[in-house]
């Protein structure tokens, strides 16, 4: 069967069945790639030298920074899907941002947890209300709010459209998180990798960091695809149950 490889039109992907078979084919590869990257990344992150200033704890960076990036990227993915929902009415876009919200919350939680675990030795406290930290916390709350909104409405396509609006409006928070350090000049490290004038970080740390960042990114896509498949199946189950119930009540 080669027909599903010949996806030419964008709208072909709109067909959940086609999406299921395609993603089913991709997932094993994606999973393997993720595992491999993690193996390399973890190896590198435990074998590189410690920082003269931060000591061994710099190793936390290899988890903390990718998770923090992912927490923002996940929201960006959701925002793109939200556009898909509102503009193209793409049924997969609905599924996509619904499935991404819990993942975003998870990555944000990791960033928060590792950040405060890093903060204790470096700053001497678990938590400070500095701008960056608080805005990440707010991002976490926004993910939870979106999950709560999705759960509170039971018509899935309506819930998807309405939360898409909210996602887009809430997108204003992403730049705030990204630039909060520059704006308020607080405790937290300013960006040293992703900046306009090129990275200022030592390649000693940069390489494991980048490998881990890729590992996290692929992990996100793997999980996202899996969650989307689950959501499609869930909707398919309810649709078929309804169908069955209707048919039964027709016959009687």
């Amino acid at each position: 069967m080669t027909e599903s490889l010949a996806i030419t039109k964008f709208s072909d992907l709109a067909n959940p069945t086609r999406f299921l078979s395609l993603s089913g084919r991709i997932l094993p590869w994606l999973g393997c790639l993720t595992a491999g990257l993690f193996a390399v990344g973890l190896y590198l992150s435990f074998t590189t030298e410690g920082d003269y200033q931060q000591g061994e704890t710099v190793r936390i960076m290899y988890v903390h920074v990718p998770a923090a990036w992912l927490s923002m990227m996940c929201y960006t993915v959701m925002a793109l899907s939200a556009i898909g929902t509102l503009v193209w009415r793409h049924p997969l876009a609905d599924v996509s941002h619904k499935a991404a919200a819990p993942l975003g919350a998870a990555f944000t939680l990791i960033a928060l947890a590792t950040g405060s675990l890093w903060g204790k030795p470096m700053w001497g406290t678990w938590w400070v209300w500095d701008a960056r930290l608080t805005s990440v916390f707010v991002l976490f709350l926004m993910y939870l709010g979106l999950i709560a909104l999705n759960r509170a409405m039971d018509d899935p396509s309506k819930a998807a459209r309405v939360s898409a609006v909210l996602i887009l409006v809430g997108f204003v928070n992403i730049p705030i998180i990204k630039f909060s350090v520059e704006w308020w000049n607080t405790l937290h490290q300013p960006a040293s990798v992703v900046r306009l004038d090129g990275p200022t970080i030592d390649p000693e740390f940069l390489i494991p960091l980048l490998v881990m960042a890729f590992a996290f990114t692929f992990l996100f896509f793997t999980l996202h695809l899996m969650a989307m498949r689950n959501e499609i199946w869930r909707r398919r189950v309810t649709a078929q149950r309804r169908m069955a119930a209707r048919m039964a009540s027709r016959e009687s």
Partner: protein
Amino acid sequence: MMSLLLRDLKLSVRAGGGALIGVLFFMTVVAVIPFGVGPDLNLLSRVGPAIVWIGALLAALLGLDRLFQTERDDGSLDLILMQEHPLVLTVLVKCLAHWLANSLPLVIASPLLGLFMNMSEVAIGAVAVTLLVGTPALTFIGAVGAAVAVSLPRGGLLVSILVLPLAIPVLIFGVSASYAAVQDPAPFMPPFLILLAITMFFAVIGPLGASLALRNASD
């Protein structure tokens, strides 16, 4: 009666998304505060109890005014009034359900927020205890307001004049008891006992007043 309690709990869980909502709300409020007063941990820990109490008041106010109005709008209130159960009891149960669904999560979440606000263990405990004792009074006072709102279609102003001034003593004794627990010269017990007395008082007066107002709802 049990079924009324269950139904009201179910309704509040269905409509707003569950018990976690209260916690989430509280966390949002607390997360907003440092943006205003700044990251000064010392200051935060000092205003902490007050903020937590204000959050509780806000949460109690949001939605409480519609405690009976939703029942009236869909006609359920008529049927509730017709039953032989004493109306006071029905009102009490509705208050209880509202408290369980809206205030109890806040009480439970308050230690967490205390941690965020860098409050001492004693202060955290004191806030939680005073909230546990004080929030029912807020609910009972709110119930009177809600009942008045139902019986007087244009009672909006009256309700706010009725509810908030009555709620302020609760808030004041709650907050001052919490502070008394940490600040040395002031003893914890007197304001706490007054808070307890206020709650007892409103636990009787509130449902009575509310059921009186409901009976007189003129349509």
